[in-house]
Structures are given as C-alpha cells and as structure tokens.
C-alpha cells in the first residue's frame, strides 16, 4: 500500500543542511500494524508527515496504492488526505469552539457531505466511541481520554485506509492511554492500516511490525507474529 523509495527530506537550518530523512525505503502492506520508534530528532515525525502528505520529500518517490503522490498539487493532495488518511495527534487538536459532534463531523464538512448523511455518520461514530452522552459538550468539558477518542472518531469518520497516530498516548495517563490504544487496535482489527509513532517501548512492542529510526535512517525493521506481539505488549505493561 505504502511504497517509499530513497526518500530524502532536507531542512535548511541557517547555513547547515539537516537530513531529517536519509534514503528511506519502506513498504507497508494493507492492514499492517506498525510502530515507529526512535529518539527525538531521529526523523520519525518527519517520516509521519511525509506519509500523511503534510510534508513533501526533497527527493525520492512516495507511492500510495501504486500512485505517485509526491507529484500531486495542493488540491489533489488535500483530496488524498481527505479520503484516505486519518490523523491522530498527541495534543488532540480539537477545535475548541466546536462541540464533540461538530469536531467529529469536520472532515465530512470539508468533504462536502450532505447534512443528513453527516448527521447519521456522526451519530454512528459517537456511539462507536462511547461519546453519545458528550455529543454537545465542548472539548474543554471532556477528559483527556474522551478528547483523544473524539479525535480518533474524527480521524476515522471518512473510513480512511491509513491511520497515522503521532504519540497518541503522550498526553494521557497510563490507564487512559491503554484505553485509547485498545480503541486503535480495535480499528486495526477491522482492517485499517495503523502506524503509531511513539517513545514508549511498551506501546511500540505491541505492534506487529516495529520500525526504528536514528539520524534520519531506518535502522531496524522487525516483525512478530500476532500472538507474540500481543504477549510482548502485555508483558511490557
């Protein structure tokens, strides 16, 4: 599904050139559960942004389902993000003036889905993520876990094939983080391709495939069978 070939991302910091990504080759198949780990500055966030089409690689090719998406213009990239990619952020990024229901419905508003259809799908998401009671609350009236569930509901309302999560539990306590991970793994179980960026080795080891980055390069790519992954995850916690 995802094909990266010799992807480079170079930033200019003053006089110096910083290679945030250095010749990255990566293939991720449909329905995989991948974690991406590495110390800060290793390039994992840059890789996530490139995968999510928020950032353009300086060189190299990124094919999504066989389509080279690096050559698309702003409108076409926006359309790909809208239809095929969901984002979950560490700091939730809910719009503070919109209610839970409105936040969840935002991608459908951008996709110009009709109001009645939107209403139906938002209700579905609210029920699926246990937020029905909170539909008309503002984000600052929600707990951290509820906020992240709201963000995940928003990310998945367009039924994307790829869900990118950047430190989804970074701002949550352990129990709530656990709960959020369970939600994400539930989505994976339904077939979504899940990529989680994390610092937390315990969380990282639950994924079926673990990537490790250092200095802009992929330095490790290990796969486990599902049972072992689950066991490792439980063991670490």
């Amino acid at each position, binding site marked *: 599904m995802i094909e990266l070939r010799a992807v480079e991302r170079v930033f200019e910091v003053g006089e110096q050139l910083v290679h945030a990504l250095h010749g990255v080759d990566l293939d991720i198949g449909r329905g995989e559960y991948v974690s991406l780990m590495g110390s800060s500055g290793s390039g994992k966030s840059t890789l996530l*942004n490139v995968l*999510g089409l*928020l*950032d353009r690689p300086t060189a190299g090719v990124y094919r999504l389902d066989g389509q080279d998406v690096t050559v698309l213009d*702003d*409108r076409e990239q*926006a*359309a*790909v*993000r*809208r*239809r095929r990619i969901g*984002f979950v*952020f*560490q*700091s939730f*990024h809910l*719009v*503070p*003036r*919109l209610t839970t229901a409105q936040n969840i419905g*935002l*991608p459908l*508003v*951008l*996709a*110009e889905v009709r109001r009645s259809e939107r209403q139906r799908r938002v209700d579905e998401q609210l029920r699926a993520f246990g937020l029905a009671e909170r539909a008309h609350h503002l984000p600052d009236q929600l707990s951290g876990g509820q906020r992240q569930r709201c963000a995940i509901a*928003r990310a998945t309302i*367009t039924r994307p094939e790829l869900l990118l999560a950047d430190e989804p539990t970074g701002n949550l306590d352990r129990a709530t983080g656990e709960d959020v991970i369970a939600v994400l793994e539930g989505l994976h179980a339904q077939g979504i391709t899940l990529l989680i960026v994390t610092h937390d080795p315990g969380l990282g080891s639950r994924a079926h495939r673990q990537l490790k980055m250092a200095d802009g390069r992929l330095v490790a790519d290990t796969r486990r069978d599902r049972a072992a992954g689950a066991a490792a995850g439980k063991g670490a916690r």
Partner: protein
Amino acid sequence: MRFGDGFVFCAQSLLKQRMRSLLIVLSMAIGTAGVVLLTWLGDSARRYIVGQFQSLGTNLVIVLPGRNETRGGVPFLLGETPRDLTIADAQALLRSPAIARIAPLVVGGVPIGHGGRERDTTVLGSTRTLMPVRHLVLGSGDFLPDDAQSGESVCVLGATVCEELFGPASPLGEFVRVGNRRFRVCGVLAKGGTSIGTDLDEIVVLPLEASMALFDSPGLFRILVEARSREAIPAAVAECERILRERHRGELDCTVITQDAVVSTFDSILGALTAAVAGIASIALVVAGILIMNVMVVAVTQRKAEVGLLKALGAERATIRRTFLGEALMMSFGGCALGLLLGELGSRAVAHSFPALRGGVPGWAAVAAVLVAGGSGLLFGVMPAARAARLDPVLALARR
C-alpha cells in the same frame, strides 16, 4: 466546504470572540453611518438649494443692470456709469418670439402702516405678470390689476405683514400707508412661500410705477424674463442681449443670466462638496478595514493549530482562504448593515428637526456603502486569508 457550512463555521468563530467581533462590526458601522449620513446631508442640501432656485420660476432668464468685465485693462469709456434698465427696455424684450413673459422688478425697504401699527418691509414693485413668472400663490383677493403701470394705488400683502397689521380681520379693500402714500389692499399672498433669502410672507407688492416713484428710482432692479420653453432659453438670452445692446447705443451694459446656469452651478458645487465630504468620511471605512485586517492577522496567528488541523483533515488552500475571507466579509457586511440602519435613523432624526431636509438615505448611497464595505472587507481580508492558506501544516501543528 459547502456555502452553508462555511457560513456556520465562520459565524461560530466570530461568536467565539464575541467582544472583538462586536467592536470591529461597530467600527465598520460607524464608518458606514458616517459616509451615509454625510452623503445624505450633502445631497439634501444640494436638493434643497436647487429646489429653491427652481421655485423662482420656470425657464427663467434674469437681466440685471451693469456688467462685470473681466477683460482687464482700462475700460473703453472711462468714467461712464452703465445706463439704467428702464420700463421701456423691459417692454422691448417682449418683441422677441423666444420670450413668453417679462416681469420688471424694483426692490426697496419702506415702512408700512395701518391704524396705529407700523413696520418696515421689503417692497417689490412689479406688474401682474410677476405672479406667473415668479410662481406666486395668492391666499385671498386678487393680484395687481392688469394695467398696473397706470399707477393705480393698490398693493398685495405678504401673509405675515397682513397678520401683523390686520390681525384676523380681512384686509381686502382697506388702506395701508406705504412710505408717504396710501394703497388699497387688493390681495394677500398665501402663507409659507420662501425663496433664497426672501421670505415672501414679509413682503409687500406694489405696482411698478408707484414703487419707482416711491423709491425715486429711475431704473429697474431686475427684469425677470420667462422663455417660451427650455429649449428657447439660449435664444431668449441672445435676444435680450441683442435688444438691449440696440437700445443702449450698441453697448451691452447689463448682465443676462439664466436660472439654469445658476442652478447647475450650485448643483455642481454642492455635488463636488458632497463627494468631498463622503471621501473624507470614507477614511473611517478604510480605518475600519485596517482594523479588520489587524484582527484577522491576529486570528490567523492564534488559530495556527486549527489551520494545520484543517489541512490535515483535507482542506485545500482555497478552503482555508475562503474561511478567513468569509469571516472578514461577515464582519464588514455586518458593520455595513448596522451602519446603514444607523444612517437611516440618523437622517430621519435630523430631518425631524430640520423639516426642510427630506429623511431617508438615497439608494445610491446605500448601494455605494455596501460596495465599499464589501470591497474593504475583501481588500483587507485577502492578505490574512492568504497568509493562513500558506501556513505550513507541519509547523502549524507542531507541539508547543
């Protein structure tokens, strides 16, 4: 984003910053109300003054004695005073086919009395034709008789003069003293006539010859000439000049002006004044526009994360641009609507205290205000909106 959704989205964001949005709307409203009110005021003044001139008469040409020369140098005949305009001159003008009627006119201030009461008034000396030429309206009785030059001692009183001398009693047939002579009252003018500086309620109209004798004046103050039609006005002017030149030994020593020229001069002066005032007032609109820009720039900075999020959720640059532009436009149009309302109410309030002015903002001023408000919203909203659209989503979403 669909239009309706965009509208709701913008409105929600403005409502979130209720106080800030309100102040911006208010500044826009004040600017709009200022432009609308001042434009209305200038326009009403113009209409009022033009109306006053037009009420003087229709297709009017005015002949006055003397001529202002702007040629410079030494006058051709040193020391010669211009010839008077005479009754015969006036009568001669009637030979022209372009001229329908004439009314010679003398003016002076004389005391007028009846019984024990006396007061000073402005006296107009003229003929019966003054009534149609000057559009005078009678309250009671009759105007000067046809053959007024015979010097018959009758007079027509202005409404206020009549009231002060006779009270509620009818003055018709009574005698009044004007200067040192007695005149029988044959009519009273209707109340409420005014025209540029002369309150027609405060005058007395006497036959031409009687008043010339009274003032001991050999010449006329004016000759009012009514051309046959609007198209005949230039011909009437030329004829007046030709006839008078002939009668004054080839020298044109009087001035012929047309009412149209006076009206259109005032019209253009006051029009220019209105435009200038509106221009000055529209500075307030520009200031309001800059305030909008300032608020939008701040909003873009404050809502960086939101912009990043919208991009991540699949918003195109154009969508972001439209959203921020929409907010700017909503504020400017909201302010404009409020300003129009204030302007309308203000103009009615002013018109209430000055009945000579007609309340109600002219349509073109309202349309112009809406266009200017929309334009400034657009002009000053484009930059912040473009800035929002250009934001790099990665930086915008960066954790702080």
